[in-house]
């Protein structure tokens, strides 16, 4: 085996094209874990650097936690499958739905307290990346 690097945009393209299947869902969950992890690391660092306040960071971290917990649940379900049937597809959609909504609300309203435009753009950037992967997974699941 050898190690390889796959870009996240390429993964998104692969995930969101064609019918839902196990491989695409697994790729999507992997891309989501990377996007969520990256978002969290960025937000924690920005709070450490005092460019965003602790209350705003806490609000974002609580939504990110929801995302991690949903990922964990979806990974655990997907691990047991040999193919994605309709009931499982519905189950995964139900897991992803509240997280997708929370991230959407965070993107729309969660950065209102950040006054510095550059900081706001950075925070929105990492959150929109998570939202994009969730959108790709939802497309792959037929939402």
């Amino acid at each position, binding site marked *: *085996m*050898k*190690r*390889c*690097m*796959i*870009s*996240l*945009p390429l*993964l*998104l*393209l692969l995930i*969101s*094209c064609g019918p839902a299947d*196990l*491989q695409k869902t*697994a*790729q999507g*969950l*992997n*891309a*989501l*874990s*990377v*996007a*969520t*992890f*990256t*978002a*969290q*690391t*960025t937000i*924690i660092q920005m709070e450490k650097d005092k460019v965003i306040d*602790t*209350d705003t*960071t*806490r609000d974002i*971290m*609580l939504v*990110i*936690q929801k995302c*991690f*917990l949903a*990922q*964990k649940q979806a*990974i655990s379900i*997907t*691990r047991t499958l040999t193919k994605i049937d309709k009931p499982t597809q519905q189950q995964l959609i139900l897991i992803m739905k509240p997280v997708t909504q929370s991230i959407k609300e965070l993107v729309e309203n969660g950065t209102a307290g950040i006054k510095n435009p550059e900081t706001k753009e*950075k925070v*929105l*950037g*990492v959150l*929109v*990346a998570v939202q*994009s992967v969730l*959108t*790709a997974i939802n*497309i792959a699941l037929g939402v």
Partner: protein
Amino acid sequence: MGLALVILNLLNTAAPGIASLVTLVRNKDGTITVLQYLDAADAATDQGLKENMDWLAAHPKVIT
């Protein structure tokens, strides 16, 4: 396909910093199995969740 391209453009425009790379183990035949994707996702999720809980525990909400 169109929507996928919209998502890609959105990602590249809004978050160039997160066009980060995913390191995975590729098999000799060039494939990456479902379990390999899930193992990588699980490891990142566990680590992220731990850091998340540690941060929240260290920064409790102060009600005045």
